[in-house]
């Protein structure tokens, strides 16, 4: 068994940023464990542009954004292992992993940062009826086939779900010569970014059908058509609205789930709403010395915010290793009245770093204000013309507001109507 100060699980955007900032905070004994053969994570297959506007003030593609952080990690000579799968972690921070060269490896860490990202919800998670023919892919799988491996998964495509990956893949498949016949969305709104609806669908006249779903998949050997239907306000298909669309491929972009199989092994408490760990403002989970950041914590829209959150987690993990992290009394932050969740869920009463709260709303709301209420008193409010579940909101608290939150008994983040 070897001993390491800091083990970071995952070498994607979250893990790279956490490693960089932990190093810059003075920590030198860091090891990144990455399952794939390359650092960079999912960014390697996200070849479209739009990354990095917040972080680098320029518009990069996914691989370019990843390369910036990979270079930072290489420059600092931070140790990493590729092709290495973590098999288990426990609450004593023992990490068991395996790869082809070393076989089985066991480490004892002083701190662990979970930066394992998220996974796509598969067909089985949404129970679509119909045949088991070839031609049904998650949008991310199709993205990998085209952008990494150079294979085209199909010619006539229907996409279920209007999450960002689904929208991006509608354009990508179109660029590669496929005909995207429709994007079908169960909800009356899209969970994807508006800009992606404009530049991935509207630009190419691809219809986006809200309040519709796939009720049947037909085909022998290969998908030959899908049947879609409108849904009522309880999301149940409405009889008589079925229409059959001929296609050879169905892509699923039906949501992402934080990958927390390892977290559960270490008894990390998870939020049923985000699917990720419950954390304090240092991004530390309820398991002492185990931190979480990026999409394993909650699914982000923008990698820039993943990097920012992860740099924070890296810095705080370094402080924890040095014994500088405060870990006393905490204040809970509840999400209410339209706000679906807030991260972090707890804030340390001590410590003087300015607080940054991330949240998502549960529905589309117009002309509202986003408020932080501490023991009944509104300490922060920001007017929003529109908020949607597809776009994460951030609240940056100033010194006075941070202090008010830390000194209260119970904080609430909520929406209020603007008169």
């Amino acid at each position, binding site marked *: 068994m070897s001993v390491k100060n800091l083990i970071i699980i995952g070498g994607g955007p979250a893990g790279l940023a956490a490693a960089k900032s932990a190093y810059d905070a003075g920590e030198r004994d860091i090891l990144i464990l990455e399952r794939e053969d*390359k650092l960079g994570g999912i960014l390697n297959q996200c*070849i479209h*542009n739009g990354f990095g506007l917040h972080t680098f003030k320029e518009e990069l593609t996914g691989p370019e954004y990843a390369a910036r952080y990979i270079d930072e990690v290489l420059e600092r000579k931070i140790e990493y292992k590729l092709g290495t799968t973590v098999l288990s972690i426990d609450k004593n921070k023992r990490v068991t992993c395996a790869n082809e060269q070393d076989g089985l490896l066991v480490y004892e860490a002083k701190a662990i940062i979970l930066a394992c990202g998220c996974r796509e919800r598969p067909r089985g998670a949404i129970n679509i009826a119909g045949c088991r023919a070839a031609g049904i892919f998650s949008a991310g799988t199709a993205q990998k086939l085209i952008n990494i491996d*150079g294979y085209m998964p199909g010619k006539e495509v229907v996409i279920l779900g209007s999450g960002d990956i689904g929208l991006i893949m509608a354009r990508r498949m179109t*660029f590669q010569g496929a005909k995207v016949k429709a994007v079908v969305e169960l909800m009356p709104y899209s969970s994807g970014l508006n800009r992606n609806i404009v530049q991935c669908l509207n630009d190419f006249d691809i219809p986006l059908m809200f309040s519709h779903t796939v009720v049947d998949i037909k085909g022998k050997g290969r998908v030959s058509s899908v049947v879609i239907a409108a849904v009522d306000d309880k999301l149940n298909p409405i009889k008589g609205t079925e229409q059959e669309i001929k296609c050879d491929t169905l892509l699923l972009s039906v949501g992402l789930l934080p990958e927390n199989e390892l977290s559960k092994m270490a008894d990390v408490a998870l939020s049923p709403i985000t699917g990720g760990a419950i954390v304090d403002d240092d991004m530390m989970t309820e398991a002492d010395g185990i931190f979480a950041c990026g999409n394993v914590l909650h699914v982000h829209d923008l990698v820039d915010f993943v990097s920012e959150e992860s740099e924070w987690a890296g810095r705080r993990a370094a402080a924890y290793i040095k014994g500088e992290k405060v870990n006393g009394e905490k204040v809970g932050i509840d999400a209410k009245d339209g706000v679906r969740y807030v991260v972090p869920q707890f804030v340390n009463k001590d410590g003087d770093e300015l607080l940054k709260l991330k949240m998502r709303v549960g529905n589309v709301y117009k002309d509202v204000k986003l408020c932080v209420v501490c023991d009944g008193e509104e300490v922060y409010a920001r007017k929003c013309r529109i908020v949607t579940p597809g776009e994460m909101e951030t609240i940056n608290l100033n010194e006075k507001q941070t202090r008010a939150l830390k000194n209260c008994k119970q904080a609430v983040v909520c929406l209020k109507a603007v008169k």
Partner: protein
Amino acid sequence: MMREMICICCPMGCRLTVDDSDVNNVKVSGNTCPRGEKYGKEEVVCPKRMVTSVVRVKGGDVAMVSVKTKEAIEKSRIFDALDALKGVEVKAPVKIGDVIVKDVLGSGVDFIATKNVAAR
């Protein structure tokens, strides 16, 4: 005419109102940065888009290298630009910024690599 549109410059997706009743003096509101104003104007006069795709690499540690147009090109020419990538194959190593196809469609804009690919 007043037109409502969503700025695509960044993921903020600002909701713009563009008044193009006077083509020589297009007015943009609702933007939160100067890029939004430029986008709103361009979108009614001559819409432009970045184009990203992949081309095959020979002898690399991966099969494909991702590419982008160095600048945005006219939206109406996206598919012509993509045609210029058909059959293109490059040799590893490839570095970010390497020119993959020079001067696409005589637009003066190059396709450049967006991924480092090491030789195998």
